[in-house]
């Protein structure tokens, strides 16, 4: 965490609306060190995926607009690259793996060819070298008998193996930062644990930095070094895993933690955070979490809290942070 590999400054995704623009992702900034795994957590629709698509500059609709100061990666500012240069960054510097491995692999292409295609494109390898490399990558991600599996089609793989294959496709290009968008959500718990172990293992062996998107705090707690909590397109709290999990200061982080089944005592009902996340078109004045927050005061309703550093390595956007030890 001493040298930042990826530094994001004030990255926003703007959706033009009637009259006024809506910030789907609002001035996101964080940095990612070499070999660091950052967990990005939050409810559905909190802008986690959108934030990562923005990093890749692959927004789902051409109407969405990207704004921000800079995204520094490998000596480039990604926001100022032209399309061709950005294409060279994708895969080579920034890899991405997705939630649903079945639909993110080309159904008509052999697994090996899909891995080899990226290797040939980014490393200029020959067909034969790329195939050998593909087999090696498949072995690294734990596919048994990679020599024969390399010629299989995706439909011949099981769900967990497809996820491994997708990781292999991304790894083939040898990226420095891997964005994993809920990589384990579609998998059952045992396979989930295997995939997480694989990701940790790859971090150790390749020094890969990762952004792990998840709404499962258990997954994040197992794997990440630091945690960023997002709500309604904004970063609420960002700090080391220990700080955020053990001593959350933002009421939303605390609420999320309290909702986790492991945090419950012998109560019958699961804890919930009352209310719904705000609609994009109807963001509340002041703090976006304000209407659902038990701590909200007058200042919360009027002023949007900005992200500030409360202690070294811990950032928080809240007017009324929880005191250490207190849990809602």
């Amino acid at each position: 965490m001493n040298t930042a590999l990826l530094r994001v400054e004030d990255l926003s995704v703007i959706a033009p609306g009637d009259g006024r623009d809506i910030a789907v992702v609002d001035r996101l900034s964080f940095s990612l060190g070499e070999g660091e795994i950052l967990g990005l957590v939050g409810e559905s629709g909190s802008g986690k995926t959108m934030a990562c698509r923005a990093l890749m500059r692959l927004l789902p609709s051409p109407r969405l607009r990207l704004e921000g100061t800079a995204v520094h990666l490998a000596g480039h500012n990604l926001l100022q690259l032209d399309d061709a240069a950005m294409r060279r960054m994708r895969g080579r510097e920034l890899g991405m793996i997705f939630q649903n491995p079945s639909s993110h692999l080309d159904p008509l292409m052999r697994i090996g060819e899909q891995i080899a295609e990226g290797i040939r494109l980014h490393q200029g390898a020959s067909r034969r070298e790329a195939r050998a490399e593909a087999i090696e990558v498949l072995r690294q991600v734990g596919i048994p008998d990679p020599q024969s599996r390399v010629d299989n089609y995706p439909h011949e793989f099981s769900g967990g193996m497809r996820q491994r294959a997708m990781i292999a496709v991304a790894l083939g290009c040898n990226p420095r930062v891997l964005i994993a968008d809920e990589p384990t959500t579609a998998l059952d718990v045992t396979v989930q644990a295997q995939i997480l172990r694989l990701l940790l293992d790859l971090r150790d062996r390749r020094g890969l930095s990762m952004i792990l998107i998840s709404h499962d705090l258990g997954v994040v707690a197992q794997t990440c070094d630091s945690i960023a909590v997002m709500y309604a397109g904004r970063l609420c709290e960002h700090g080391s895993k220990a700080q955020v999990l053990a001593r959350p200061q933002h009421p939303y982080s605390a609420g999320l933690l309290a909702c986790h089944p492991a945090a419950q005592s012998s109560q019958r009902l699961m804890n919930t955070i009352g209310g719904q996340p705000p609609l994009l078109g109807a963001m509340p004045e002041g703090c976006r979490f304000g209407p659902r927050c038990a701590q909200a005061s007058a200042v919360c309703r009027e002023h949007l809290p900005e992200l500030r550093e409360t202690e070294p390595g811990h950032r928080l956007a809240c007017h009324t942070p929880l005191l250490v030890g207190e849990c809602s």
Partner: protein
Amino acid sequence: MSDASLSLPVRWRLRWNLGDGRLPLYCGLAIVLGWGLLALLAPWIAPFDPLQQNGELRLVAPNLAHPFGTDNFGRDILSRVIWGARIDLQMALIGVIFPFLLGTCIGAISGYVGGRLDTLCMRLIDIVLAFPFLVLMLAIMAILGPGLSSFYIAMALVGWVSYARLIRSQILVLKESDFALAAKSLGFSHRRILFGHLMPNALFSSVVFCMSDAVLVLLNGAAVSYLGLGVQPPTAEWGTMVAEGQSFITSAWWICTFPGLAVVTLAMGFSLLADGVAERLGDRS
């Protein structure tokens, strides 16, 4: 020994299981390949020269020497039907390939790029479709002059629209698909994504349509020749032969009937092939 005799019927049953589209596939394949073979071996199979006239053997009814009879110039109909297969298969093949290539490229690019280019292409397709197919073809052929090459050009200019629409609709769906996004996230260029990943996935329905389109092209070719704009006499071509025979339809039915039957069987072969391929491919996806 006893083992083999027991397992043999089972193997045969499995091998010749004609469910899930195999029956039409094999029948269609057999018919089309059969005609292909006849066309290929025409010089050796045909009993007579298809162009050789014989004043003494005019309008001879089918008999042992001339199983399909002879026409008003004394030419052997059987030989002419066999030689005609060469021209007609060629028409069906080339008449499908050019519209397929043209339509697929235009449709794929139009669907992938979208925006104004897409609108432009769609309007162009609407314009072409607004004319009756045959009228437009005849107009183009009338301008280009009669002949096979102008038939191919007219076919490509008119036929591409169906392929373009078909492939465009597939590409529109596929370009939003997850694996297209995954390909983008690997830094692939648009060309690589479109032609390397989206096209192979979009081609299923076009390939099936190709086969049934071959029927239409074949009938079109015959129709155009019948109208005197396609293949010119005395070349042996089924449509032309039907046209030539129609004035004798009451006195010498065999002149029209046998080339007509040839068109029907080949067209049926292509239809069956299309059905079979559709069902087999449908199984896979």
